[in-house]
């Protein structure tokens, strides 16, 4: 039985305990975001607990990307609050937010195509010392052996899957405690999608908290502890991954029957 979020309180987690924004890894409180006059997010509240994989699903244009990017302060939310590890980060400049322990793999990957794999990765750990940077690169290459083979190749010459690995690797360079992923499976072959989801689970086992935005709802909900459903910029459902997979409305709208 799923409940509308309004009924359970904004920051309910599936286990039943209510997380105060200060206690969650990430919390959004009544977040609203506009693009000029167009409202893309409407009063969104949600929370991600430490060590969780939380998935956000929704149709094309529902506002998933906007939600994820609003956390990073780009675009800046019009109203509402964003909390990260108990501190309010609403209105903090993007670059400062991103230096504070969270990383994003944005929609469309946005790797630096003219730069080599090595240079792309190095950019992910820009403020590290040289030794730290080299250690992080080694760590990422262990995770994605494929990138080791492509180490001196330009990002733009690689396949979509390899580029996605690079985008994830780059995000991991700063050793984030929270990783935001925007449709990492988009446009990839099923085998590669499997690899990407395996990595996401592996990362969680290593202690990284994951907030995953997906249209590939089935896979994303299968690995998720909890999930949210976004429609027209508003959260309409919140429940455990398992419960959402079984939910009739969700099945009809997002799982193809």
């Amino acid at each position, binding site marked *: 039985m799923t409940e509308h979020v309004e009924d359970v309180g904004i920051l309910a987690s599936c286990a039943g305990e209510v997380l105060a924004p200060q206690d969650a890894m990430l919390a959004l409180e009544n977040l609203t975001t506009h693009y000029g006059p167009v409202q893309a997010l409407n009063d969104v509240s949600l929370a991600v607990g430490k060590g969780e994989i939380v998935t956000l699903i929704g149709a094309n244009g529902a506002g998933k990307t906007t939600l994820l990017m609003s956390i*990073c302060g*780009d675009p800046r939310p019009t109203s509402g609050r964003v909390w990260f590890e108990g501190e309010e980060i609403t209105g903090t400049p993007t670059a400062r937010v991103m230096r504070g322990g969270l990383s994003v793999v*944005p929609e469309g990957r946005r790797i*630096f195509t003219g730069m080599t794999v090595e240079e792309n990765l190095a950019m992910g750990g820009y403020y590290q010392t040289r030794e730290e940077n080299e250690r992080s690169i080694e760590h990422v290459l262990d995770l994605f052996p494929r990138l080791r083979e492509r180490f001196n190749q330009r990002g733009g010459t690689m396949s979509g899957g390899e580029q996605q690995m690079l985008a994830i690797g780059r995000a991991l360079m700063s050793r984030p405690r929270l990783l935001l992923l925007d449709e990492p499976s988009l446009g990839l072959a099923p085998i590669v999608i499997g690899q990407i989801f395996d990595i996401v689970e592996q990362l969680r086992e290593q202690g990284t908290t994951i907030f995953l935005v997906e249209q590939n709802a089935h896979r994303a909900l299968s690995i998720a502890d909890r999930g949210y459903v976004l429609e027209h910029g508003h959260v309409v459902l919140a429940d455990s991954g398992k419960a959402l997979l079984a939910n009739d409305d969700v099945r009809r709208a997002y799982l193809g029957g």
Partner: protein
Amino acid sequence: MEEILYFLQQVINGLTIGSTYALIAIGYTMVYGIIGMINFAHGEIYMIGTYVTFIVISALGMLGIANPFFLMGAALLVAVLVSCAYGFAVERVAYRPVRGSKRLIALISAIGMSIFLQNYMRLAQGSRDMAISSLIPGGWEFGIESFAVNLSYMQVIIFGVTLGCMLLLSTFISRSRLGRACRACSQDAGMARLLGINTDMIISMTFVIGAALAAVAGLLLGMYYGVVNPYIGFLAGLKAFTAAVLGGIGSIPGAMLGGLLLGVAEALTGGYLSTEYKDVVAFGLLILILLFRPSGILGKPEVEKI
């Protein structure tokens, strides 16, 4: 034989001027690469660099210092520092406050800055030409009896200093951490920000590097011609802008190539047609490129900037 030597002379002269165009053009191209806008006050930075050079050389000359290399070194140092400060200020005052608004607004703001700097220099230094005598006269001559090719020491210095600057810049851009961030920002500044990079700092740095190179050009060309007035920035800026567009705006090697090509094209026109057509060539070229190949020689075909 005479014909060939004459041609050679024009090419040498063209490469001399072209080197300085290239130095100035780099400032246009780097700023464009990162913020997608033309720095219309850039020619004025070059003009200021030339003034500072003249002032330092005259002042030290009055103190009785005569070693030309010491004078040049001192002038270079001061001119670069002062111009960097102006470059930094131009970005802060004319660009940063209007970043994110319509392009036309930034354009007007930059042109306003350019007019301000020009008139400020006119008030401070007067609008008449200021001159210094040649510090490093002489040169080599070679050729045949009826025609000798001149290669002045100053020309060699111009080539040498320009080459040095280019090598320094290329190494910086391709090897250093900041240079890498610079390239990342010019491809996707938003993404760089999402990686925690302080893109404002990178933008400032771009203006400062451009200003430093413009100051070097100001020093070199100032010492070559020996005169300066508050209006030289306009023409030099337009020429260098043409060079940047010719090479492909946004591309650093393009700016270097465009500068040299434009310099040679001008010199050949001056040498074979008439010096009065020199400037016409630059702007004719600009119009032709914009019409037929807006991306320039080394630019990427779709020059699309937000």
